[in-house]
């Protein structure tokens, strides 16, 4: 064994130093800075001053806008994650059954994943345009339904954003499911077929149970990502003159509220408290995911 190996290779410190320095300044310092700020009142004009748990107390007990943001966000997560996963799972299973042309479909479904979220939101804003102008309302009218004032009626803002997000996330989820399905032994399907199972039964009794690890991963990632929704609602509710949350805060999400408090109202201590509540939630989910995977 060479001497260098016994003594170690301190040059390693040099190799990791640039990255570590960057992380110290732009990740670890902000991480603790944010924690500190969440216990202060900081409005940029004056230096932060310590107020203990007051921000958290106000957020949780005295701020109806925070709870509006929380409700909208949970509504969004519940609306997007299960539906998006069911559709993409069925599509992925169908795709794996296709003898040819898999790649073409994968590419087409994947395009929204590589598209800027704000560009997607801009396009869907036009698709969701009110009265008879938007393409979606045109379809509704053709189906004999009433056109919907999607982005200006408090009831329909979040559903519109959800429909867009489900659409945008299909290809991304499909890639995971396709990868998972391709590892399922073909013999399981053959055995199921011999037992007389049809496509749907094989999907339900072979594909779904065998995909459990992938499903857990996609569900948790989906919840974490959806919980942080911002750019979509920022664009879709923007430009109406109604502020960050759109009409009656109907499109206000947790991250929108953070942005509103931090960068519109410049209440940076308060916004940091919101950030840490989001962090806590994401952390909790990650722990749950690890528990589920360990089983």
């Amino acid at each position, binding site marked *: 064994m060479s001497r260098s190996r016994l003594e170690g290779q301190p040059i390693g410190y040099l190799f990791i130093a640039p*990255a570590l320095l960057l992380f110290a300044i732009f990740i670890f310092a902000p991480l603790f800075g944010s924690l500190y700020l969440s216990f202060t009142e900081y409005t940029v004009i004056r230096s932060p001053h310590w107020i203990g748990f007051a921000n958290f107390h106000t957020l949780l007990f005295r701020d109806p806008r925070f709870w509006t943001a929380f409700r909208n966000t949970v509504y969004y997560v519940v609306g997007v994650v299960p539906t998006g996963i069911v559709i993409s799972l069925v599509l992925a299973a169908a795709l794996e059954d296709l003898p040819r042309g898999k790649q073409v479909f994968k590419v*087409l479904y994947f*395009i929204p994943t590589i598209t800027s979220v704000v*560009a997607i939101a*801009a396009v869907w804003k036009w698709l969701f345009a009110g009265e008879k102008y938007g393409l979606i309302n045109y379809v509704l009218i053709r189906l004999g339904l009433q056109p919907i004032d999607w982005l200006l009626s408090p009831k329909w803002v979040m559903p519109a954003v959800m429909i867009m997000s489900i659409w945008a996330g299909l290809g991304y989820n499909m890639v995971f499911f396709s990868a998972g399905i391709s590892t399922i032994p073909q013999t399981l399907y053959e055995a199921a077929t011999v037992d007389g199972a049809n496509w749907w039964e094989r999907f339900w009794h072979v594909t779904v149970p065998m995909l459990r690890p992938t499903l857990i991963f996609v569900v948790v990632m989906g919840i974490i990502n959806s919980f942080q929704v911002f750019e979509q609602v920022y664009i879709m509710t*923007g430009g109406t003159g109604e502020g960050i949350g759109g009409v009656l805060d109907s499109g206000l999400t947790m991250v929108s509220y953070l942005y509103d408090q931090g960068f519109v109202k410049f209440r940076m201590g308060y916004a940091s408290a919101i950030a840490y509540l989001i962090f806590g939630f994401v952390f909790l989910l990650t722990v749950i995911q690890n528990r589920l995977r360990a089983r």
Partner: protein
Amino acid sequence: MRIDGRRVFIAIVLTVGAILMILPYYWMAISSIKPPEELFLYPPRFTVARPTLRHYVELFTLLPVARSLLNSLWVASAVTLSNLFLCSLAGYAFAKLRFPGRDGIFLALISAMMVPWQVLLIPGFIIVKSLGWLNTFWALIVPNLAMPFGIFLCRQYTLSIPDGLIEAARIDGYHEFGIYVRVIVPLLTPALATLAIFTFLSQWNSFVWPLIVVQTSEMRTVPLIIGVLNGQFGANVALMMAGALVVTLPMLLVFLAFQRQFIKGIFLTSIRE
């Protein structure tokens, strides 16, 4: 016969889905070249009678869009190149070099990947502001020069490189940096391609960070154009669609050229196990 019928049904479902995936893009493109009198026709038309580029002309004269494209290209390229170098170098150290505290530091990096970006936004803004970097390329580039995830990816790939190759190079008299350049980097190419795609894409599409650190029209990156159009010209649909197309098209072309690498890359970069 029964199997064929099922296959046809599956193909039809997938095709209808694929059409629904493409339709918004088609609608974006077609709306951007419709003259105003055709844009709000009822029923809406899927073709254009008299296509016009006037919205693009308007867009490029109203806002410094060409400058924004250059800004985005510069920021995304600089961040990508830097990540390729810094992450592979650190990845090599974490995978193959021995020094006290190595695994503890690596663990801290892994935990950093879990931190949601929102938590870093406000202090990040304050730090950049106190450095006097607001509204400069420094603010857009420097905080992203290296990503924990990139190091993680490079380390995982480097672990699979046999120690024998490194030992042989060491016996040949190469120093550690020489080994990194001659042995590690060439073998790391697939991982680096993945990292490059992921980094460039996420930088090109990045919206929130530029939104808070950019203050003037000359410093805007491309996605910010959408934000501006949305805020100031919200009613001008054709202009919005032209802007959306300008943001989308470059990445779409690169994606179509390197589709397999893209899909594999995004897939790999999402699995952080």
